[in-house]
């Protein structure tokens, strides 16, 4: 837009200012990962790499990270599948109760996590009669992740229209071939965006996880929560967080690039 130079400057200043503020607490985390004090206090007592060494040795953190990645990957996969099916149904057909279905998928993300948590935990144990395990976490996470995929895919389908699919049928492709060769590739960036958000939501979810995690199923947030209650472990948690921040930039950046590449091709 045609803004005055001052307006542009002010906006830029505000944006970079807020971004800087966003990173202040993260810097505190980084600082505390080398703070000899084990209780995350300010100012720093000195500098030590003891916590980094301990974190490197922490099997618990590594196991929890693996569990979290597994849970997030599985929940995302389920959300991708169900969200895509749902989006196709909602976007390509009209049927009775469509609006209710739309509202229904939004509920798990819109209702507070503690509600979703106790409802599912109670549902699993007393109604379905299944023991809590890593699978119950995955199911719970998938339930509130469906909507992110479904909404992204719906938006894409809406913009895509039906003409590509019709062209494919016109050229002789059957229903499934059309889906495989045309619809799916077209949805790629939407799936990527929805999947990323789903993965992030699941990876960092603690409340719903608390209620639906079975014995031995420790996700990273749970591990972090537990270790904040252990003597001497808090700084190791900071190290883990720093490592997470650093490594997360890679997928975030890649996804950005990938989706904008796809966007350009559209």
């Amino acid at each position, binding site marked *: 837009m045609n803004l005055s130079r001052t307006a542009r400057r002010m906006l830029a200043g505000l944006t970079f200012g807020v971004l800087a503020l966003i990173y202040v607490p993260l810097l505190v985390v980084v600082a505390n990962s080398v703070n000899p*004090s*084990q*209780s*995350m*206090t*300010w100012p720093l*007592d000195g500098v030590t790499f003891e916590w980094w060494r*301990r974190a490197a*040795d*922490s*099997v*618990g*953190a590594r*196991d929890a990270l693996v569990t979290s990645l597994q849970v997030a990957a599985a929940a995302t996969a389920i959300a991708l599948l169900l969200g895509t099916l749902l989006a196709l149904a909602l976007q390509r057909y009209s049927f009775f109760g469509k609006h209710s279905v739309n509202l229904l998928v939004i509920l798990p993300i819109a209702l507070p996590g503690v509600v979703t948590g106790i409802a599912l935990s109670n549902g699993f*144990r007393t109604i379905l009669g299944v*023991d*809590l395990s890593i699978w119950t976490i995955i199911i719970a996470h998938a339930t509130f992740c469906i909507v992110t995929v479904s909404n992204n895919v719906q938006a894409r389908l809406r913009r895509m229209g039906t003409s590509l699919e019709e062209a494919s049928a016109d050229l002789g492709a059957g229903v499934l071939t059309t889906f495989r060769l045309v619809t799916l590739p077209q949805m790629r960036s939407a799936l990527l965006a929805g999947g990323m958000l789903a993965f992030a939501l699941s990876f960092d979810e603690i409340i719903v996880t608390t209620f639906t995690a*079975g*014995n*031995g199923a420790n996700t990273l947030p749970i591990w972090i*929560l*537990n*270790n*904040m*209650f*252990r*003597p*001497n*472990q*808090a700084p*190791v948690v900071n190290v883990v967080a720093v490592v997470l921040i650093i490594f997360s930039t890679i997928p975030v950046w890649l996804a950005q690039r990938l989706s904008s590449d796809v966007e350009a091709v559209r």
Partner: protein
Amino acid sequence: GCGSDEDKETDAVEELGEMEGQVSILAWPGYVEDGSNDPKVDWVTAFEKDTGCEVTSKVYGTSDEALNLAKTGDYDVIAASGDLSLRLIASDEAQEVNTDLVPNYENVFDFLKDSEWNTVDGVNYGVPHGYGANLLMYNEKNFDSAPTSWGAVFDTEELERNKGKVTAYDSPIYIADAALYLMKTQPDLGIENPYALDEEQLDAAVALLKEQRKYVGEYWSDYLKEIQAFETGDSVVGTTWQVIKNNIKNADVQVTLPTEGATAWNDTWMLSSQSENPNCAYAWMDYILTPKANAQATEYFGEAPNSPAACEETADPNHCETFHAGDEEYAEQLWFWRTPIKECLDGRTDVECTDYAQWTQAWTEIKG
């Protein structure tokens, strides 16, 4: 007694059989360490080697959370504090323990054996782990002279000068701390046992706590939060555990056992009534009572070990002294956590006491 129904009575096992190869344990953080959090902190691996029982464990943050988890039946052994143990027994989640099958039980301080919070009607439901008191911690700088009474956190005048910097343990069981203070300062109320409060007595304790609430900066339930708050000065007086004091670098922070005595906890290793691995469970209970393992676990967590032999094994030679382990005189001033139930624990039969659910409700209202 506080009873399990007759028909639900559980009979302890008479002898042990084959190890099942696995055991699942529910405990406070720091009780079951296998080196995965810190390779130097590991007493589980040795157990696994000895017995072939592979350990899976889950930790909980409050006793109440543990009850919920115990009910899933996923755990063979549960480390329960006194405010939980009776509830586990009442809800049939725990089964009788045959202490004959736990050779190391012998070593345990006598005053910890068959305590009211793990033995009901003469039936033993578990073996003790470690214990600790809920002490009074304060920052010297904020006091003219070292406080010696819980009045520091209950007396309005005392509270006034630390307004917003008072802290207290965040659990309904903290009502007992107020009751203990009232027991000593207002004998008219007739409180005999801080865990046996009739409605009137509870109301008095609640009123006291509501008054205290006005001065409380924050409640705490995990170490880190309290350590940090006392280090920075966000909190200057409140209940604490010895281990927390030990972790505070600030030299101005002191801890004391006030003249009124204090509430305390003693954890019990209990056997789940739904246990599918009772042999490994027994093996664990015995193992964690060995002087070496008990010393490691209690020292790591920051509490008193349960036997003189364990005191020999601590890495810090002063550990038992610091934590007053085996000090019976000291222990006499402690009111170990128990679950409040309708049937008064102090033996009164003319009134009905308030139960834990009421305490929970009251705690919600106190915090407001």
